[in-house]
């Protein structure tokens, strides 16, 4: 999560690599509650993170699906 970039930044990275036909296919807000499913985070950590994000007015985190294509060689 801490490594998440803006959607535009991800797409720009893809363009820099050479990808074309870049599409953002789906976007949905990622609620902290959903992260409680994962055995990666302790309850204490998620509670802390939720508190910090609310206190600091943090931008929300989204889940996206993105697709791009390597150009065909003519």
């Amino acid at each position: 999560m801490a490594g998440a970039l803006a959607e535009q930044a991800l797409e720009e990275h893809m363009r820099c690599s050479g990808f074309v036909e870049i599409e953002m296919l789906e976007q949905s807000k990622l609620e902290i509650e959903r992260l409680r499913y994962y055995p990666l985070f302790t309850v204490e950590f998620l509670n802390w993170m939720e508190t910090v994000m609310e206190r600091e007015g943090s931008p929300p985190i989204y889940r996206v699906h993105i697709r791009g294509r390597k150009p065909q060689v003519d």
Partner: protein
Amino acid sequence: MADPSMDVQRIVRETYGAVVPENSNVAEALYDSRDLEYLPMDVRMLALGLGNPLRYAELREGEVVLDLGSGGGIDTFLAGRDVGPSGEAIGLDLTETMINHASRSAEAMGAANVRFEPGAMEDIPLPGESVDVVISNGVINLSDQKQQVFNEAYRVLKPGGRLVFADSVVNGTLPEEILSSEAAWAG
């Protein structure tokens, strides 16, 4: 941006290497019943992805698919099913524990067209132009060298090949306390 003193790869490797699966809640939230029925419970319980990139991958028989950050192999196994015996699905993961889990699952499932390789998505151990599709599920955000990840995905793809991935984005800056938290970089 990670604190330059933070070894993000180490954090990711240690965190995912220590995962103790408790249930299949993540898999049940992300995959449909056809997918879930195909997968043994131990694979379902190691689902740690963010979305379902296979939904948009449009896989075809005979294709070669590379799954970056394959973890327990859930997407790799489903890709192997979708490309059939004339295709191949390769899972790449940084974490030896996950590679071992997934390889054992492949053997138990008899998934002959699926294999798992240790390695980093910033330095993919495959030849150039060898893969039809690269997928990734909630993993690219774990890298602090994202341009390199996309460069490598591009390199291994055949001309006309496609990259399809699910990931987290934030349109703004997360609080500094979160950016400097190792735990926040691991998930």
